[in-house]
């Protein structure tokens, strides 16, 4: 997608990130202003003034993923999980190093984004699908399936602003789980759906994961990760602390063998 993967479809999906880093510039009112920038320079105070502070969100990232890889992404808040997912999706291009992503990417960061409150649920389904790389035809073929899954019925022809939060989440999940991505990137937010519906969504999510070539899933739910992933990446302060089999990485990250505890239950 943007800048990173240029062609879709041909060849197996792959993600290659080499020595990549992501720096976020932190702007304030002053550094956001062209007037200030120009006047500042004219006044001869270039030095510290023009320097925008930077947050180094990711450092020396080396990852190589191929078709069939199902990777859990673990780490504390602020460790860089979401940023790494966005790097993989092509939303951010690395400020240092290189990244190459090949394949149709479906990132699920925030279920509400790309939803327009003024238009109907059906239109929103179509637009979201198009954004995720589907064609209009493909989406039309899936609408019945989505309608059934979301149980929204006649509501689908109503503007989205008439929906409750729960209904919106259903709609978004319905769309996301009906597409055929080659690279599926799931951020933690997706776990925050009401339990009853999630039980139903779970099966669809599993099927989706089966269909997609590469999965990277950031979550704090060990159970979910154990079900979906085989390997894990442990992010710590913007670097990859460990990348290996899920069980080992979770063990080191948590300090005890989490998966063994699941099995003994």
């Amino acid at each position, binding site marked *: 997608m943007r800048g990173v993967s240029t062609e879709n479809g041909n060849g197996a999906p792959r993600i290659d990130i080499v020595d990549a880093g992501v720096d976020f510039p932190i702007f304030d009112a002053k550094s956001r202003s062209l007037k200030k920038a120009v006047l500042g320079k004219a006044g001869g105070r270039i030095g510290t003034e023009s320097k925008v502070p930077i947050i180094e969100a990711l450092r020396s*990232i080396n990852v190589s993923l191929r078709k069939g890889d199902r990777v859990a992404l673990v780490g504390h808040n602020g460790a860089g999980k979401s940023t790494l997912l966005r790097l993989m999706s092509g939303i951010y291009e690395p400020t240092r190093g290189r990244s190459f992503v090949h394949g149709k990417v479906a990132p699920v960061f925030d279920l509400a*984004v790309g939803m327009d409150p003024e238009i109907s649920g059906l239109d929103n389904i179509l637009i979201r699908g198009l*954004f995720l790389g589907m064609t209009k035809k493909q989406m039309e073929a899936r609408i019945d399936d989505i309608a059934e899954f979301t149980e929204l019925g006649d509501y689908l022809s109503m503007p989205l602003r008439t929906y409750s939060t729960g209904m919106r989440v259903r709609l978004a999940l319905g769309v996301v789980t009906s597409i055929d991505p080659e690279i599926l990137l799931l951020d933690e937010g997706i776990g925050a759906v009401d339990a009853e519906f999630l039980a139903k969504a779970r099966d669809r999510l599993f099927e989706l994961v089966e269909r997609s070539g590469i999965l990277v899933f950031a979550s704090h739910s060990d159970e979910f990760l154990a079900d979906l992933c085989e390997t894990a990446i442990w992010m710590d302060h913007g670097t*990859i602390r460990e990348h290996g089999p899920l069980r080992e990485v979770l063990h080191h990250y948590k300090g005890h063998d989490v998966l063994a505890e699941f099995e003994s239950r």
Partner: protein
Amino acid sequence: MAVTVTADDERAEGARPLADDVPGPRSWQRAFGDLRQGWRQRPLWGYLGWQDIKQRYRRSVLGPLWISISMAVIATAMGILYGALFQEQIETFLPYVAVGLLIWNFISGCILEGSEVFIANEGLIRFLPAPLSLHVYRLVWRQTLFFLHNLVVWVILMIIFPHPLGWTTLVALPAFAVLVANGGWIAILTGIIATRFRDIPPIIASVTQLVFFMTPIVWSYERLVSNPAVAERARLAELNPALHFVEIMRQPMLGDPIVLRHWYVVGVITIVGWAAALVCLRNYRARVAYWV
């Protein structure tokens, strides 16, 4: 530390190093790739552009007619007012003002919304991977739809006040294509700069307002130039690029003779503008996601 699991047998085919064969963020390949990929997503921006239009008249009683009616009202009011002010014939001056406004609406729409094109789509840019140009195509498409919609006003005026339309009227088609192409570079260039420097959109808005009055839309350039007392000063209006853009479109639409001088100026601006926009796209395309 970074222990990359590699089942080497499986990965052998894809294991070649990529640092050299992948174009960097600042490359022409990526910049043109962005434009190409955005173009390929026509169904998406085509649909979004329609939605934008529908949005605007969704809650009004008159629906789609509303856009054109409000346009016609403004044109009539201005035509009558300024016609009286400059002592112009209403049957030529009213269509002159209306067509000028029609064209100006398209131009100013591209400029004003262009500078906010990435800021306004912040959510989409930060959460869904898509080529930057997608937002630009959507914007220009939306403005095109508005223009076509307002064309009804032109048709009605041509019926009420017949003009010597003929084959040269068809020149309006390439002229509009040129306007559209210019809308593209303006949105890319000002959009990227304004995403970095947030004081740009208000500056652009005031400059555009000023340019409106300096462009012969509610006043006639011919009339001023033919007045020896102000002719010298009036010629300065030619320095205003908007004048040439309005003229290439308005002349065919009103059946006036085509003046090539305006086409030359517009041609140069189009080339220089696109060159600047492409350089900007090449160098800062990858930064926009960090700036919004």
